[in-house]
Every structure is written in C-alpha cells, then in structure tokens.
C-alpha cells in the first residue's frame, strides 16, 4: 500500500492551491491583465484595479468555501465510516436553504441572508442530532437516516416557498439554491476565514481519535477514546463548517463528497494528512470551478453548483467503476 507522507503531500497541496489561485485571478470571463495591474497607470490600470477589487474577494471566498466543504466531508466520512457521507447529508444544506428562503420571502436585506442561512443550518443539524439520539448516545446510523428525512422535509418547504415567491425573491432563491459566489465581498471573506481556521484546528485535534474510528466506534472506545465526546465535537465542527459555507455561497454539492475521496486515493486515510489536504484540495477545486463558471458562458455566469455537479457526477461514476 502506497501513500504520500504528510510533509510532501501538504506541500504539494499548498503549491497546487497557490497555482490555481494565481490562474483564476487572471482568467475567467473578463481577463485581468496582471501587467496592467502592476503598471497601474491610466485607464487600463484603473480598470485592472477595479477588476482586481471585484475578483480577489471572489477567488478567496471560493477557496474558503471549498476548504470548508471538503473538510466537513472528510471529517464526516471518517466519523460515519462511510465513504458516501457528504456534509449535505446531515440536513445542513436544506436548513440553510430554508433559512435563506425565509430571508428572501420576508424581504430582508441581502446582507442579512447569511445570518438567516447559518441559523437555519445550525437548527437543522441540532434537530437531526436530536433525532439520532438513542439512550443518551449519538447513533451514527440513525444520523444518516435523520439527515435524509430532514433534507426531504426541507426540499418540500423550499419548493413551496419557491412557488409563492415573487419575481425578485424567487430569482434570489434560485441563485442561492444553485450556489453563487458572485456576491463575494471582503467582509464575507473576513467572516468566513476564522471558521475555516477554527474548524481545521478542532478537527486536527480530533484527528488521531478519528483514525481509531476507522475500525469502528467500539474499537475506538476499547482503545480509550471518549467516543461520545469525539462524535459530538466532530459533528458540531462539520455542521458549523457546512453551515458557514452554505450561508456565504449557497448550496454547492459534490465538493464535500468527492474531494476526500480523491485525496484518500492519493495520500491514504490518516486523518492528520487527509483533513488538511482535503481542505487545500477543496479550495483549489472550487477556485477552479469558479473560474470555469465565469469563463464558460461569458459574460453570463454558470451557477457554480451546476459545474461541481457536472464534474462530480461522472467522476463519481468513474470512481465507482474502479473499485472492485
């Protein structure tokens, strides 16, 4: 069995992210000439500066959102011992979408939408966790089922809200349900950054325990792990990461499911490597997808959720066919 060791793997991941960031900053729809930006003179320089001011928060937001989703996905796959676990399986995406829909219906300012979405996401995950509680323990099997039920319920609510929404509200809701990075602002980047760092720190702390979960919850308990506490911490961290990502960028699927898969195939299943590397790879993936969403139908934009799905589904099929 071969696996890249941690140092080189993380270095490669960081390099990849840096390269993708640099490329995506310059290309995609409207071309940003780095030369004009550097020179800074005249109208070309002014346009370049303005474009950079528009694009930089967007590219950074894409990286942060990608990191959140991939990190949450990796953590959940380890906790649930299920390679098909996806952060959206736990009802967080549905809850966040309903939260944002409420904001749109009530006519709240778009600035408040992320807060609504976040509250919705957190409420949903807490609800799902409560449903999955059995005899004081968090039952992981019931968690998956409860999440499925929650998502189905929220979908119904969303469709109902969508049908009664007026033109503007329904337009906002649609863009939101398909994922959109077009409203990126430096404020959002600054707000999301701490989430990623905190989530990463918490999950890295839990990583050795998560490694023991790979053989099963009982096995981990027998080796001295406080499994209830670990489950709570990891679940909470994953929910917060997902809620924050969805609050700022809408529902973007497949990243949380596929990035950990790809990283595991390359770097093995040691969570101390898998978690940070997934964050880096997820960031790179979403930055690239965002560049494609800007470039594909310029000057119009493809919703980023459509791109991750279009990339993700065939990739997933290929992965399925590969495994014996």
């Amino acid at each position: 069995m071969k696996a890249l060791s941690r140092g080189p793997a993380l270095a490669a991941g960081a390099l990849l992210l840096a390269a993708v960031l640099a490329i995506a900053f310059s290309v995609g729809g409207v071309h940003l000439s780095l030369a004009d930006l550097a020179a800074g003179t005249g109208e070309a320089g002014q346009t370049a500066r303005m474009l950079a001011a528009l694009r930089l928060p967007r590219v950074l937001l894409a990286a942060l959102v990608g990191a959140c989703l991939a990190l949450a996905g990796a953590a959940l796959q380890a906790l649930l011992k299920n390679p098909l676990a996806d952060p959206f399986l736990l009802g967080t995406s549905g809850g966040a979408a309903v939260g944002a829909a409420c904001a749109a219906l009530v006519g709240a300012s778009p600035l408040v939408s992320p807060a609504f979405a976040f509250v919705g996401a957190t409420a949903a995950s807490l609800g799902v966790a409560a449903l999955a509680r059995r005899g004081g323990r968090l039952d992981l099997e019931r968690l998956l089922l409860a999440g499925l039920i929650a998502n189905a319920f929220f979908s119904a609510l969303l469709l109902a809200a969508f049908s009664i929404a007026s033109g503007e509200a329904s337009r906002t809701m649609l863009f939101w349900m398909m994922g959109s990075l077009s409203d990126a602002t430096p404020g959002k980047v600054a707000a999301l950054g701490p989430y990623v760092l905190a989530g990463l720190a918490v999950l890295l702390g839990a990583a050795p325990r998560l490694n023991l979960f790979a053989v099963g919850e009982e096995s981990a308990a027998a080796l001295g792990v406080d499994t209830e506490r670990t489950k709570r911490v990891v679940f909470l961290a994953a929910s917060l990461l997902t809620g924050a990502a969805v609050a700022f960028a809408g529902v973007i699927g497949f990243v949380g499911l596929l990035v950990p898969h790809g990283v595991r195939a390359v770097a093995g299943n040691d969570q101390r490597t898998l978690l940070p590397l997934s964050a880096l790879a997820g960031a790179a993936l979403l930055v690239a997808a965002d560049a494609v969403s800007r470039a594909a139908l310029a000057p119009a934009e493809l919703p980023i959720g459509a791109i991750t799905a279009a990339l993700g589904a065939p990739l997933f099929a290929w992965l399925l066919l590969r495994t014996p």
Partner: protein
Amino acid sequence: MIRHGAKGLLLAVGLLFACREPGPADPAVGGPRRIVALAPNLTEIVFALGAGDRLVGVSEYSDHPEAARLIPRVGGLEVDPEKVAALHPDLVLAIAEGNAQGTVRALEAAGLPVTVTPSGSLDAVLESIRLVAARLGRPEEGRRLVAELERRRAAVRARVAGRRRPRALLMVWPDPPQAAGGQTFLNDVLTEAGAENLVADRRGWPVLSKEYVATAPVELLVIPDSVEARAAWDTAFASGTLSRGPVARARRVQLDEAALTRPGPRVFDMLEKLAEATR
C-alpha cells in the same frame, strides 16, 4: 365516370376541411364576444383595436388602460386554467414566450379556442397585432394600427441613419444583473433606436456577471422605471453592481417599465423616446 365522382368526392372532402380550419370569426356574428388575455401586452393590444369591452378575463398585471383594471383576473405568470374555463371564453390569447405552454395546451385540450401570438422581435409585435385583429374580426383596425406603427418605426430609422451608434445595454434587472440579449424585441428597440447592443450575441435575457457589468464599455444604459423596483436600482447605482466602471458613468435613460417591457403598441412610444437619447 368514376374520375368525375372521385373529383367530386375530393372537392367535397376539401371543402369539409376548409370549413373545419380555424379561420377569422364569422363577420356576420361580429367576432368573439368573450375574450381572455393571458398577458398584459395582449390586453393592451385588444384595447388598442377597440375591442376592450369584450374582455372578460385578463392577466394580473393588466393595468393599461385604466379600464383594464376593472376586468377580472385569471392569474399572473401562473395562469389558472379552471378560472379561464369558468369564464366561458370564445377566444383565449396567449404569448409564445411567457405563458406556460402546459397551461396553453391544457386549455386547448379542453376545447377552448386559443391563439398564441409570436414574440422575439419588433416584427413579431406587429405580427401579434395583425393576428389578434384577425381573430377579433377587426382586420381593418389591425391594418390601420400596424400601418401607423410601421410609419413611426420608419421615421425613427430615418432619423438615426448615419448617426454614430453608442454602445448600450438595456438592463431589465440590477442585481443579479440581467439584460436584453439578441433575438428579443427589446434588442430590436435598442438597435433601431440607433444604439449598439453590447450583448446582442447572447440570445434571450442573459444574467451578466458583475465583472462584465463593471468593465463593459457602456456608453448608454437603458433601464425600466417603476415604483416597485426603484429602490433596487438606486442601491445598484449607489453601491452595487452599477456603481463602478463605465456603466456608472454612462448616459442613463429611464423608460416607463410597463410601456417598455410589454411587447405591445406602447413599445413604439419608447422607441421614439430612446431615439432622442441616442443623439
């Protein structure tokens, strides 16, 4: 002998089919008396043709002319086929782009006479007027109205000929930024008024990226004006999608939203107004 008979039979069958074909209403009866219009522009067209008193049901946004506000509503973007059927119309008018085709087919299946009017260009607007006029049994009024509008259109074309064409965007919504692209009647309005539509190569109503809006070399910006949307546009100009780049500095033309965005006779008023601004 047999050939004669066959010819006669063919003639008889041909006549039978000719009679069954939906054609203009029988002039002796005066045309349909219970008309339902599923879009506000169709309401305006019916009134412009002098048959407004025959409308028994209109779409929700029909507010022009004033008299239209009193006519019972049958729904907005989503039309309730049962409401329509309950009015026992003898003519239902729909537009190809905008009315749910499923609803239209449901009404046709129920045996109601539905006429779908074309869209996508100024020519289509004129064709719609001609078609509705024919269905109403008022072809003369239709011809007169179309001739009048054609005359005004030609006058505009003459006026703007030879002028430099400013680069323009006709936006229908500020955030997310949506504009009129190619193969739309508003594209024709913009072009025939003497401007160059920057997004004419994108069909339909493209949603533009913020980056594009901020960097496009817009010299003329045409936007619809309405009480409900004013706040959204103001925000966009102050700090949003229209606050930076050439589009923020471009010459701005605000046209009444109802008149601009409904493919009906009033669009030609807008055409004339816009032609002034492109000078």
